[in-house]
């Protein structure tokens, strides 16, 4: 593992896409001690034309979540009267907090599902790259998935240790680590590398550090070029988000657009 300068920023191709998803949920009431959760999830892709972003694909869902194995059929029928889809969360035991945790899992899964849908729709047409917020596990096997570029902001999963970890976490600005392969739970193989977007001196070692991921089917001959594209995306800064050092502005805009479509809770 070594640090490799990638060169200066390079403009990404015209028509590049940016994908992200958002979710929100709240407990609207209880049947006994069982919470009824109201959830909304959305995912979308913005395409850049010139220096403007425009909406390309968007999906949104609103639904209720109940503990499916403990709900009386009559109550379930009453929920149907709201006109929203009703999903079930299977909690290991009956407790409101556990039920909420289970509901949150459902929400997250559904959001990831929508993200897969919008990314798949974008990748199925054309030949433009797509920058995805997060890893690419869900896209394995999708048509055109080799054009997907995952940008992971969180570093909760440790892939390196020892001197390799030191090299990765102390990358200078504008440098990347060597590429390392990672096999996903579904058997797909990804190529991954760390990229320092912003200098970390006087900051946390994770400041400005992103992990980039690509499906191994795409090869790794354009790692430096993709890194330069991402370096170019440092401007403008998504200053409203505390994760601005790793959050690309177009990704931030996808979130903003999706939340704007939500408005307030109905």
């Amino acid at each position: 593992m070594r640090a490799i300068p990638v060169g200066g920023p390079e403009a990404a191709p015209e028509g590049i896409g940016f994908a992200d998803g958002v979710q929100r949920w709240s407990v609207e009431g209880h049947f006994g001690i069982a919470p009824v959760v109201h959830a909304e999830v959305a995912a979308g892709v913005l395409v850049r034309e010139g220096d403007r972003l425009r909406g390309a694909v968007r999906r949104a869902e609103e639904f209720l979540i109940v503990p499916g194995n403990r709900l009386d059929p009559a109550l379930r029928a009453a929920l149907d009267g709201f006109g929203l889809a009703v999903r079930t969360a299977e909690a290991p035991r009956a407790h409101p907090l556990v039920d909420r945790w289970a509901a949150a899992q459902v929400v997250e899964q559904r959001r990831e599902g929508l993200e897969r849908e919008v990314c798949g729709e974008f990748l199925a047409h054309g030949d433009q790259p797509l920058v995805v917020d997060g890893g690419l596990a869900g896209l394995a096997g999708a048509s055109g998935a080799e054009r997907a570029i995952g940008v992971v902001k969180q570093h909760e999963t440790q892939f390196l240790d020892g001197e390799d970890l030191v090299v990765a976490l102390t990358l200078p600005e504008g440098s990347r680590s060597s590429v390392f392969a990672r096999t996903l739970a579904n058997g797909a193989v990804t190529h991954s590398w760390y990229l320092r977007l912003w200098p970390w001196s006087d900051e946390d070692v994770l400041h400005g550090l992103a992990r980039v991921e690509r499906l191994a089917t795409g090869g790794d001959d354009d790692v430096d070029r993709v890194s330069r594209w991402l370096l170019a995306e440092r401007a403008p800064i998504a200053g409203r988000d505390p994760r601005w050092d790793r959050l690309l502005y177009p990704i931030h805009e996808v979130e903003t657009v999706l939340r704007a479509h939500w408005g307030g809770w109905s």
Partner: protein
Amino acid sequence: MTDGSQPVIGRVVATEALPAGPHQFHFWTTPDAPVGIGAIVRVDGGGRTVHAVITDGRAYSDLVTPLHDVMASEGNPAAAPPPTRRTEVRLWTAAVLRQEPAEPLQPVPLADVRSADAHDVEVALRMDTYARGDERTALPVGLYSAGGTRAPIYLDADFLLGPESAHLSISGVSGLATKTSAVLFLLASLFTHFPKRKGRVAAVCFNVKGPDLDFLDQPSDLPPEDVEMYEALGIPAKPFERVHYYAPYKADGVNLNTLRTHPALVDEVEPLVWGLHEVLDYTEVLLNRDDIDAKADAFLDFLADRVVGKPFVDEWGQHHLVESFAGLEGLFRAIFDGLEQAAGGRAEMWRTHHVATIRKVRNRLMNVSTRCKGLVTDEVMSGDLPFGAFEDRAVYAVDVAGLDQLGQDLVFTRIVSKLREHLERRDLGVENVVVFVDELNKYAPADGPDTYVRKMLLDLSERGRYLGLVLFGAQQFRSQVHRRVVGNAGTTVYGRMDGDELATPGYQTLSVATKSKLATLPKGELMVRHPHFTQPVFVRFPRPPVLAGRQGVERFPPVPDVPFADAIVRQLVALDRGMAPQRAHDLIAGRREDDVRRALLATRRARPADVLAFFTARLGTAVRRQRVDEESAAAVSPLKPLEDPYAPT
């Protein structure tokens, strides 16, 4: 009510901090939407249609702090632009012009926003109530031009010339010729569109500086876009057809005190010359406040009522017929001589008037012809506006630019007072008169002494509309004009304004953006307030179809003053083109200048068929001085001595 002919350009937004109200709302557009400050927009929704004018606009992006932009460009403002442009918003504030239905008055619906088309503009400004039908009273004031829409903007004649409201006040910085141009354009519009059924209309324009109004009958070279505007507004792009010029003489009494002295034009300038009769009623103008006490006032009344123009016999048996300043001086001399002889020179009263009061009035009055030389004459003669014979759609341009303040005050006061008198009697010749006065902050200032001129202008602005006497006042600083004068103006027009002026309280109701637009308004644009318009409206107007003063002076350069005799001959020849100049020269050679002046003025007044004969008759027989030498003296026989009737018997 929604015809949908105009594309949607924005959408009304309302938040708790920026709610939509019945009088104001906010909407956003794309950055390239064809709207700006002053544009009229239309909102349809919730069963109502709202027309509004944009009064403010803001643009911002999601940039939290400028520091983020510095960081993103790594401190280099010349760095390549970021690949993604930040999302930005154009947020506009609009003031409601009209809501349909008007009742119940409700907040503006949160709906789509469209640019106004020509019909919308008419409805928004309530012009539909007076711009159509047989009772049309619309006077074009300019073209609305925004959002791809061009539409004529009309004033309501009933609210410009009365009786509903009246008067126009126009403000703007000096030097752009906007104020004068706008007034001349508006007069052209008025003369074209003022309904015949409303009576006849004329304009009296006081030229107070330079040659501004000296070439109203001369065409200018209008650019095609201005000609197009005239066509769009239905106004002929040609100079005024009937213009009558008046100017006083200079101190020499023969050269006109105006810049319209080019030989091709000067013949159309009538001299403005007033004698005692014309001036005496306006002595208040000429005398300062310290002069006018009750005693002096009483003596002036006595002179006006009992002396001037009437046979008068004094206590010492002398008969007086005072028709001129010279005659008045004769009366004063008789009074002082009589008092000198009476009571051994100690008499102090004459007909209840103290001798000191008489002396003061005499000094002030007799100085008038000196201080206003050229305008006021010692003699019995006058050249005046044709009160009683005013022509419909004619401009009477009175050039007072060369007069000092006192003379200007006298001209304003007398002419406006005469107009008022004749309009009250309905015998002026027209039923409506527009009086245009520039530099109103000088003649009706907000502070300073309460002059007769200011009182006259106040009276005109407060009572004029009932008489058909309308003031078009122009000034650089509206805040420096008496508030009752500007306050009575039903229509207010603004050209480019001075920033300091805009900071005064009178402009508090305007938004910051509107003020900024006013401070940078290009030549040819105005902001108009009119009783029918609930918000100010910006319009474009064409250059007036007449030569501007500066162009006029270049094309018709004034000629230098000519000698007395040449000036007289030139005026005589102008009255009779067939006259041989040498004959006129011979006629006046060796004659007293006062006699010549008097004869010329009389000839000008009479306009006889045989000018030379009339002039000769008025000039009278020459009384030549004869040199008496020794020889001829000896040839005269000694007179037979008469009996001395006073010889002691």
